[in-house]
Every structure is written in structure tokens, then in C-alpha cells.
């Protein structure tokens, strides 16, 4: 029985030792979900501890529902969650409930959710199944996020064959709260009542964390559909409003969301972290249908539920407010002094375990081994291009689904509700007003699975650096990150090595760039039929934009402005979009990353934006200079003429993905001031040419009209994902 629930023999024995007897059916189910990889972080915890988590902005670091930083006296909560496996089994509901879950994480801190970002990865769109998955996920995000009235302001969508059997659906949520109203998941005060707010509990999502999230996908994944929860965004909206209203009225002592492992997790965690105990009565839990067994009620992952701890004298008012707002609620138990989670069904005690033992699962230092195939892959050569082939190459890369404009997707997301969205999706980073503050924040998510596949240490560091550039492009000061670490099975030593390397790379980059990690999520077992995904750590970064600083556009604006490239360029095509799109190769070594140079270049850009020197800023990433130039032309609806030095071949100049670079345009009169900033930071800037005309001209080799650039960049994604409609 315990093996079927995902517990090893040793783990089963340990449960017996903790209880001093054999667990009953309900207790076994509780340990099974709580000690699952998804809930216990048993393979990752010891490595995650090495990440830096302190910084001047950080109010609450890892270990809570969400990390929290302070922006001008306002608490800004941030969190990323994955919902990869559910989205493969049922894309619309999988993505929808992924949003619901991370929104409740942020809500559990007492914060109002104000923005969502969705980093997504799918297999190639030439496959009908991948199109079905991508369309379903986008539609799930649209239907759920739009309904709850939280704008979806960013994210990324990238494609790679390795995600065919295991797409990645990560969701980041940002929330805000007055600093003095932050909540914790603590069930303080014996005698206090425990309220369950929101949806009724049903049989959906039972064992989601152990059945789906903590095992690899195999053929017949459709049979796991009952393990995917069904979302009800309307109820989520009611739960958001009711929770915040009760907190505002001062009626709540502690809050915890119900996510993975459901009621079992929420009750045991909140009691354990307060050093108290809890007794609950399953007969008082509102059910969708009669006849649920105790283990089902305890581990059900029915959505849209929150656990609230309320003083006895406030219960009546709290219930009344929930009723007024139309949100279901029930008193299901109370806080005790026992240190135990005691579960009754009426008068019968159906489970009785030390509350802390559920969260205190095993920790494993799993064996790690560098993959044998890596050296060969890194040594492979990437072909060059003749000058005559460059124009076609630029258009092909611009139209590749990973690079092309994702307007088709983000137009399905409400990105404006709440009226905070100053810079909308499609830019390097979204910029949001922070309610209650004069400051604004820049937010972005980034990750490059190809780089991580070729060098997980460097790849994870690049994810941090890329987010750093995106945030810096707006003029904002990078403040903190949260992460979502998507990997294959930790039982494979090669995967464990990738994981350890990635965590090490992320930690080093965060220390060098001075951005702490406020928390995160680990998603292992991203494999199907033993094909693992590329290791894909995703970084979500928040930066703070000073008062009165206007983020420049990413597109060129004025005829006659000077185009400059900040940062030196080398021939670095390993893991590039160029190699992938033109030669179907994911080989070589990722670009080098000099974090001091990264910090210096970012500093120059932020100062230049603050001094209003720049007419446009766009960071360089996948696709290199060619893509940055083309995007700056298309977004600004104006051409450019540039000449490149001859120290590198033209294809290297255009497609190299050397890090720490920005493409800027600037009025001639400001060049001197920019040079002062560059000199002071030890950064270099190279004048490439000027803005103007109606085509992109590169030396005498390339001349592409704006219309052709736009067709390639904006027209291609819609027809690739939805060939029937276009």
C-alpha cells in the first residue's frame, strides 16, 4: 500500500517510529502527500539553503507562502509555482488551477494579488498535440486570470522538442499589502477557531502532489485526469475579497492557503509553525458529495480554499462578512496546545499525528554525476553563414516561435485591469504602479533551458543575468528574485548534478548582482517515457523604479538618433537561437558570463535612464544583435542603418549571444554624457549607426523593409499555433 502511495520502505518504517504504531489508512495518506517530493523538497532542500536570501529590501525570505520585499513602505509579495504535469494531462484546467494556487500563496501573506506572469515551455508547434497543449494553456490562463481580475502582464513562451512530453507551465504572482498588515501561516492561540473558507471539498485532485507532481509522466497520462483539479475562478475572486476584507477588519490571526496536499498540509503546517496543535472535525467540512472517506477529505486538492485562524469572539463577525460577500465558510476546528494534528469524524478520532512530523519529512543527499555526453555536446562546432545568406537567416530567426511576437497570446490576457500597468506585455519587462506608493516596480521572468542543458551552472547564472538586464532596461534597480526550478527525475544522478550546478550558478549570480532569493519552487520529475526536459530554472525578478523615472520604450523613436551597442561582442554561438533555428543544433558552450561586467553595464543603463539620456533601450538576449535591431525597428515603426566592424564575421556580429549587452538609441547631444557614464563604469559603447528610413540596413549586405520585418515577427506566431484560423 505505502509503495503505491509513493513512500519508500524506509519512509514507511520512519512513520511507524514517529507514531509508535502502524499508521492507519488516513494517516498513511497524509504522510504520503506531505512527504512527497513536491511538498517536502526532500531532494532539493539541502541545496536550496545555499542560495543568498538576505538583502536590504527583503522583509520575508524563503519558507513562507511567498517572499516579501519592501518598496517604499509597501510590502510586495512574490512567488512562482509550477503546474507542469496537470497542464500536460488537462491543459486548460491545469493552467487555470496553477494560477489559482499561486494567487492563494500570495493571498496567504495578506497581500492583494496585482499581477501575474506566465513563463511557458512547449514542444515544437509543428506537432498537433503541442499546438493543442499551448492553445489550451493560454486559454486556461486567459479564462482564470481574467475572471479573478488580476492582470497578466508578462512571461515568456518558448519552444523546444524536449518539452513535447512535458510542457512547463509556471506562474508568477505579485501582490501588495500595507507593511503592518502582512499575515503569516501561523495557528497561534490555543482556543482560537479554525475556519475553512471557499469551495466545498470534493474528490478532485486527490493525491495530486504525489501521483502527478512527484512522478514522471508515462503513456496513459489521460488516466490521471481525475488527479487534476478543476478551477472555479468566480469562487477564487470571492475568496480573495473575503480574505482581504477579514484581514482588513482585523479578524484574522493567521492565514494559510490550501494547495498541494490540501487540508492536511494547511492544518499541520500552520499548527507546526506556531508550535501549537489543532483538532478538526471532518463532519464540519462542507463536501460536494456525501461519502468521502477521511483520507479523501484530508488530501483532496479541491481549489479555491483558504484556512483562517480567528479568535472565538470574532467568529460571528467573520462568518457574517463571508456570508455578505457570498463566500462559503465553515468552522472546522480549533487550535490546541497538544502539538498534534487530531482529526475527528464526529466523535471518532480518525487520525492523530504530531503536526510537525508531517512537514519534517526525510531529506536526501542524492547522488550526482556529471553526464558523460556533455563533453561531446560542448565540443561540437556550429557552422557559419555566407554574407548572402544573412538576410534570409534574420527573417527565419525572427519568425521562429520562440522569438516571434507573442501578441496572439497576450491579447487574450487582461493586462490592464487594476490600472497599474505602465509598460505592457511585449517589452523587456513590465512596469507597474505600486498601489499605496509613488514608486513603481519592473517585473520579468526569464530562463534559458538550452544554456542549462549545455552548462547548468552557467545557464542558471544567465537566467539571473537576463532578468537583471530586462529589469535594468526600464531604469529599475533589481531588488530580489523568486525562482521555479524545473528538472527531470532526482533519482537520476545526471539530473541531480544538473540541479546542484544550477543552484550553485544561480547563487553565485545572485550574490554578484546583489539580488537575494526570496523563495521559490522546485518541480522535479519533468520527464515522460524517460525523456527528460532540459534543466530549466526560471527566474522571476522584481526591480524598483525610482520616482519620476520614465521607462524608455524598447523601440527606436526619432529619425537621426544615434544607435549604440553597450557591451563588447565576441563570437559566442553555443546554445544560440541561431544554432537551434538554422541548424537544429543545441550544442557548444553557452556564452561566458562576467558578472562584474554585467553589473557595470546594468548600472550604466539605469543611470542613463534616470538622467533621461536614452530614447530607447532594449537588452540583447536570444537571437543577439539581429533580433534586437529588428525588434527595435518593428516596435518603433521606424528603420535603422548600421555598420558593423570587421573584427568578427557578419553572422557572428549579428547572431552571437554574448551577454551583458544593450541596444540603445540616443540623441546626438547626449552622447557625451553617456560616454562619461561608460568611462566611469569601465563599460564600452560602440556607435553602430542611426535611426531612420523604412528598412533595416546592415552595411551593404542587408536591407529588409519594415513591412517584411513586421510580417516575420508579428504574423508568424498566430499561424504557427493556430494554423486553422491564422
Amino acid at each position, binding site marked *: 500500500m505505502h509503495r503505491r502511495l509513493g513512500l519508500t520502505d524506509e519512509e514507511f518504517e520512519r512513520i511507524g517510529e514517529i507514531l509508535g504504531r502502524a499508521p492507519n489508512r488516513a494517516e498513511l495518506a497524509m504522510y504520503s502527500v506531505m512527504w512527497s517530493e513536491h511538498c517536502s523538497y526532500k531532494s532539493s532542500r539541502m541545496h536550496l539553503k545555499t542560495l543568498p536570501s538576505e538583502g536590504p529590501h527583503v522583509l520575508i525570505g524563503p519558507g513562507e507562502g511567498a517572499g516579501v520585499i519592501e518598496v517604499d513602505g509597501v510590502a510586495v509579495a512574490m512567488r512562482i509555482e509550477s503546474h507542469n504535469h496537470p497542464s500536460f494531462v488537462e491543459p486548460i484546467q491545469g493552467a487555470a488551477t496553477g494560477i489559482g494556487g499561486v494567487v492563494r500563496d500570495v493571498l496567504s501573506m495578506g497581500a492583494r494579488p496585482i499581477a501575474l506572469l506566465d513563463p511557458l515551455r512547449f514542444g515544437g508547434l509543428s506537432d498537433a498535440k503541442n499546438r493543442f497543449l499551448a492553445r489550451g494553456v493560454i486559454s486556461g490562463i486567459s479564462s482564470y486570470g481574467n475572471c479573478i481580475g488580476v492582470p497578466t502582464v508578462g512571461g515568456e513562451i518558448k519552444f523546444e522538442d524536449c518539452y513535447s512530453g512535458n510542457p512547463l507551465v509556471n506562474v508568477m504572482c505579485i501582490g501588495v499589502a500595507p507593511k503592518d498588515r502582512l499575515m503569516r501561516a501561523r495557528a497561534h492561540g490555543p482556543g482560537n477557531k479554525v475556519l475553512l473558507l471557499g469551495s466545498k471539498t470534493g474528490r478532485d485532485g486527490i493525491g495530486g502532489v504525489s501521483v502527478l507532481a512527484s512522478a514522471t509522466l508515462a503513456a496513459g497520462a489521460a488516466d490521471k485526469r481525475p488527479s487534476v483539479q478543476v478551477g472555479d475562478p468566480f469562487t477564487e*475572486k470571492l475568496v480573495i475579497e473575503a480574505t482581504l476584507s477579514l484581514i482588513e477588519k482585523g479578524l484574522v490571526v493567521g492565514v494559510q492557503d490550501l494547495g498541494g496536499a490540501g487540508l492536511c498540509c494547511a492544518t499541520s503546517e500552520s499548527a507546526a509553525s506556531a508550535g501549537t496543535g489543532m483538532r478538526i472535525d471532518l463532519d464540519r467540512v462542507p463536501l460536494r458529495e456525501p461519502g468521502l472517506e477521511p483520507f479523501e477529505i484530508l488530501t483532496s486538492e479541491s481549489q479555491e480554499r483558504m484556512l483562517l485562524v480567528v479568535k472565538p469572539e470574532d467568529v460571528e463577525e467573520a462568518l457574517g462578512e463571508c456570508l455578505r460577500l457570498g463566500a462559503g465558510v465553515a468552522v472546522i476546528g480549533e487550535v490546541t496546545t497538544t502539538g498534534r494534528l487530531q482529526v475527528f469524524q464526529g466523535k471518532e478520532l480518525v487520525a492523530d499525528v504530531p503536526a510537525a512530523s508531517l512537514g519534517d519529512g526525510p531529506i536526501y543527499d542524492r547522488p550526482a554525476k556529471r553526464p558523460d555526453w556533455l563533453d561531446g555536446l560542448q565540443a561540437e562546432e556550429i557552422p557559419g553563414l555566407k554574407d548572402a545568406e544573412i538576410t534570409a537567416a534574420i527573417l527565419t530567426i525572427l519568425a521562429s516561435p520562440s522569438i516571434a511576437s507573442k501578441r496572439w497570446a497576450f491579447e487574450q490576457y487582461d493586462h490592464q485591469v487594476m490600472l497599474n500597468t505602465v509598460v505592457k506585455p511585449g517589452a523587456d519587462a513590465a512596469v507597474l504602479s505600486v498601489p499605496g506608493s509613488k514608486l513603481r516596480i519592473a517585473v520579468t521572468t526569464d530562463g534559458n533551458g538550452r544554456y542549462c542543458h549545455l552548462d547548468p551552472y552557467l545557464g542558471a547564472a544567465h537566467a539571473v543575468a537576463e532578468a537583471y538586464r530586462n529589469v535594468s532596461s526600464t531604469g529599475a534597480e533589481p531588488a530580489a528574485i523568486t525562482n521555479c526550478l524545473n528538472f527531470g527525475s532526482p533519482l537520476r544522478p545526471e539530473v541531480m548534478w544538473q540541479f546542484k550546478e544550477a543552484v550553485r550558478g544561480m547563487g553565485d549570480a545572485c550574490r554578484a548582482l546583489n539580488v537575494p532569493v526570496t523563495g521559490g519552487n522546485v518541480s522535479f520529475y519533468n520527464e515522460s517515457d524517460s525523456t527528460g526536459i532540459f534543466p530549466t530554472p526560471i527566474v522571476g525578478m522584481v526591480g524598483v523604479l525610482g520616482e519620476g523615472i520614465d521607462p524608455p520604450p524598447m523601440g527606436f523613436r526619432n529619425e537621426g538618433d544615434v544607435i549604440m551597442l553597450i557591451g563588447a561582442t565576441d563570437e559566442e554561438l553555443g546554445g544560440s537561437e541561431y544554432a537551434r533555428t538554422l541548424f537544429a543544433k543545441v550544442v557548444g558552450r553557452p556564452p561566458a558570463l562576467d558578472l562584474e561586467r554585467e553589473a557595470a553595464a546594468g548600472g550604466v543603463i539605469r543611470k542613463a535612464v534616470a538622467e533621461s539620456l536614452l530614447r530607447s533601450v532594449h537588452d540583447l538576449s536570444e537571437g543577439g544583435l539581429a533580433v534586437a535591431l529588428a525588434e527595435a525597428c518593428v516596435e518603433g515603426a521606424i528603420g535603422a542603418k548600421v555598420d558593423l566592424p570587421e573584427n568578427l564575421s557578419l553572422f557572428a556580429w549579428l547572431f552571437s549571444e554574448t551577454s551583458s549587452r544593450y541596444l540603445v538609441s540616443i540623441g546626438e547631444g547626449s552622447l557625451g554624457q553617456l560616454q562619461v557614464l561608460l568611462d566611469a563604469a569601465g563599460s564600452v559603447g560602440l556607435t553602430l549607426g542611426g535611426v531612420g528610413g523604412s528598412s533595416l540596413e546592415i552595411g551593404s549586405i542587408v536591407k529588409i523593409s519594415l513591412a517584411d520585418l513586421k510580417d516575420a515577427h508579428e504574423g508568424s506566431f498566430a499561424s504557427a499555433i493556430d494554423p486553422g484560423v491564422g
Partner: protein
Amino acid sequence: MIAVVVFPGSNCEQDVAHALGLLGAESQFVWHLETDLSAFSAAVLPGGFAYGDYLRTGAIAASSPVMASVKQMANEGKPVIGICNGFQILCEAGLLPGALRRNSGLRFRCMPVNVRVETSNSAFTSLGVAGQVLEIPINHFEGNYYCSPNTLVELEANDRVALRYCDAQGKVTQEANPNGALGNIAGVLSDGRNVLGMMPHPERAADPELGPIDGRVILESMIRALVPV
């Protein structure tokens, strides 16, 4: 004082209040269980997903207790505007003719569109000029306006089409129609010209920090038309 009616699932009420505040107008949220709006001089039914759009968009909200009082305000000639989901509710409640079907592309659309002011003879367009083009965002899945041929004749004959989707030059074209709406209709007036339903969100085009402010034409006209209570 303007009533901003809040249904379970409404999500643009704060935005409407913010925009009205920018224009110097006072507003107050009114929960859908209220039954007496006599103290208010106008009502806004904001966008969102009242009752999760379950059954049909606007269908359940149309039976909310507050709606009798909204109807009374309309009958008294006070300005009543339904924005997006509010438009859907007004149609379901019978305050405006027609219905909003799913977008012809069968996708949700959140984007700026151009609409042409068709008449300045209403409580919501008096500060506009017929033919004027306004850039205002839409944000809906069910914005495809439809009504019977007879109703359409009546609407056109009585100058009750307030706004039509158009291109930047004001030409009403099929390409400029984001949802398949009959006659490119983006906004419809009641017979008394004091009730407007419109799919675009004027409150999203009112704060200069966020972009164009063409939505102010609609909101300022309404504020101008307020009847002191």
C-alpha cells in the same frame, strides 16, 4: 454622488472609481444587495465577471436585488452606464435591446480599439462630436453585439448607436471590428438616451500615466449630465 454597482465577480469597480476621481467626481461602491439607490445621481455597472459569467454573461446579475433600483434610476432619466460586463447585464435586464455573443474569432481580446462617436446627443457623448475617433481598450470574450433586424432598424432610425468600431481614420470597416458585432456596434443607447451600454472600457483610457485618455469624453459627458439629487 455616482453609484458604482458591485456584483460578486465584478472586477473593474476600483478602476472606474479611480477614473471618476481623476475627473473630480465622487463615487461610492454599492453592493448588489442594496435596494435603494435614490440618493445617487448616476449609476455605473462596471466590467468584470459577475457571477463568473455562469449561465450566460450578465444573466444572473440581471436578477440581483439592486437591479430594480437601477431600472428606476433609468426611468427617472438619470445616467446609467454599463461597461463591458455591465453592458451585458443591462441587455439581460432589458434596459437595452440586443445581446452580446462570443467574439467571432472565439478568443478573448484585450487590446486598444478605435471607436467612432456616432451621436453627441446623449448623456455620455455630449462632449464628443459625431465622427470623432476615440482610442479605448476592449477586454472581453463576449462582445459581439447582436439584435433582431427590426431592432437594428429602430436603433439606426432613432440615432441610438452611440459608438462603432472603426479604423484610425474613422472608417467603419470589417478589419476594424474586433468581435464581429452587428454593424460594428460598440455602444448602444436606450430610448431615453440616458442609458448607455458599451464594450470598450473608458476608465482604462482616462489616466495619462497609462496612455491615451480618450475615455474621458464618455466619463466627463456623464459627469456633466449628473442631476443633483
